[in-house]
């Protein structure tokens, strides 16, 4: 399967039926999350990109292709836009088997290519044994995989996912996330993911666009936005945590540990099931990062990092302070009490040691 993916550049404006004024780019070969609460307009954006909905003003570019430009009266109807759309309820055709659905989505390919392609897609989504089934005879997770297979059958330039995990329970969600990441990486797909669950953002996305009431409230890389604690709309229900990509340097099977690194940030974490060189998504919660002025002894901590204070800001609770740190180019957050911040004399530029328990690091491979 050859990767062919282009980036998206999107500008949409309307005042009716609700105000929408967004402009963002989704880079090629990456997962971009469109994050916001219900009513923020994120599903409208996704539908407009697919051509299922029109907005008063719109300019949608996919690579060099103009899909829509109201200024030029350019409009490409949805069936001519190479998108794979995975709907929240999957939108599987109830009267067709999985194989028939894939065949239908492969209409742009010569008939001789379709059968091998169908088998490849079924294998990719681990549905080989279920190709003859209709959607009603599939479990929730299988339906989702079928929907993804059908979206990929289109040979899409972009994969659009509308709340892809909303309909499955928590236990399944985690494994489906892993599958999606693996799939996206192996095919170098451009993915635009609409979600109201920040876990999806923290675990899957490299880029983030936050929508609030039809406007872009923030956008940037997930690492930068989480490291600066600058994601609007998650205060109060999500603890500050940095989400960043690290690569596996090597394993220490004796001690059941894996060495990972992101720039100058080098960490030991419990063994990760991925080969050296692979990328893992790491989440470091601010409350798990302890600060010390001297190298401690007789502690169970596995990770001691030389850091520098960037800034100290007030936290959600008046007794707490959120400390922004730099380890080389990589940023970290640490949640400490106001007393501790005073005792350690934390101020911008001060060198400090950041201590992290190995088990406190969530690595998602």
């Amino acid at each position: 399967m050859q990767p062919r993916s282009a980036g998206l550049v999107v500008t949409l404006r309307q005042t009716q039926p609700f105000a929408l004024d967004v402009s963002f780019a989704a880079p090629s070969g990456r997962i971009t999350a469109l994050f916001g609460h219900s009513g923020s307009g994120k599903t409208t954006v996704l539908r407009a990109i697919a051509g299922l909905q029109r907005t008063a003003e719109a300019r949608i570019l996919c690579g060099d292709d103009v899909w829509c430009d109201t200024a030029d009266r350019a409009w490409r109807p949805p069936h001519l836009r190479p998108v794979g759309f995975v709907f929240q309820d999957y939108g599987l055709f109830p009267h067709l088997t999985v194989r028939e659905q894939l065949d239908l989505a492969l209409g742009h390919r010569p008939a001789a290519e379709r059968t091998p392609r169908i088998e490849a897609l079924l294998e990719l989504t681990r549905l080989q044994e279920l190709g003859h089934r209709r959607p009603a005879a599939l479990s929730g997770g299988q339906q989702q995989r079928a929907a993804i297979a059908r979206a990929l059958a289109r040979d899409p330039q972009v994969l659009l996912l509308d709340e892809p995990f909303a309909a499955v329970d928590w236990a399944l969600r985690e494994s489906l996330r892993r599958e999606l990441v693996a799939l996206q990486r192996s095919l170098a797909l451009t993915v635009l993911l609409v979600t109201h669950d920040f876990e999806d953002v923290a675990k899957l996305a490299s880029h983030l666009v936050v929508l609030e009431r039809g406007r872009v409230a923030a956008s940037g890389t997930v690492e930068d936005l989480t490291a600066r604690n600058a994601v609007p709309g998650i205060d109060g229900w999500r603890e500050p945590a940095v989400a960043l990509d690290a690569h596996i340097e090597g394993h220490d099977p004796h001690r059941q540990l894996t060495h990972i690194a992101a720039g100058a940030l080098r960490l030991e974490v419990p063994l990760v099931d991925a080969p050296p060189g692979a990328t893992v998504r790491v989440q470091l919660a601010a409350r798990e990062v302890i600060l010390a002025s001297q190298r401690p002894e007789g502690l169970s901590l596995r990770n001691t990092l030389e850091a520098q204070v960037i800034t100290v800001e007030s936290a959600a609770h008046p007794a707490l302070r959120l400390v922004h740190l730099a380890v080389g180019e990589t940023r970290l957050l640490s949640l400490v009490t106001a007393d501790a911040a005073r005792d350690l004399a934390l101020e911008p530029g001060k060198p400090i040691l950041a201590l992290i328990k190995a088990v406190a690091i969530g690595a998602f491979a």
Partner: protein
Amino acid sequence: MDWTALGLSLRLGVLTVALLLPVAFLLARWLAYGRFRGRGFVEALVALPLILPPTVVGFYLLHAFGRGSPIGAAFEGLLGHPLVFSFEGLVLASVLVNLPFAVQPMQNALAAIPTSVRDAARCCGLSPLAAIRRIELPLALPGIATGAVLTFAHTLGEFGVVLMVGGSIPGETRTIAIAIYDRVQAFDEPAAATMALVLLVMAVAALGISNTLARRAARRD
């Protein structure tokens, strides 16, 4: 037993279904998916034949089809004979009277297709026409079949409108329902009973077919 009348009724039923289905499907689709003002009004208009006495519908059609009206004049120019008291007039009246029987089951079936399924059809590369052919039509098939069966059965049994618009001309406008009435008036009980039984059997068969189709569709998902 009036075989001519039965043949005429069957011919009328088949023609009505054949002419009505495409029209009713487009109308049903428009009502199921269209976002426009006055939809309630159009729906009420389509349902009108259900609640109006057939003689009232027949009365208005008689006037609409008459020589004095533009419709009547246009058709007379086309056919070479008046629309009223002709088989063609009967077909046209039958199509109009049966609109709700065909439109409503189709509209319900189309409205029951989730928006995401129709959107997915477009995102799978199907043009609007291909989406209708490969997704909407098969999914709405039980509703279409129900509409066809109801229309056919109702056409065989229609009495008031036929009498008003067509009269009772043998071989031209005398349907089996009219023939039954005619036989009763002539105290020909056995003939009336035979024809009534034929209609009864057909109605039961129609309902049986329609129910079977609905059940088969339900089993699929």
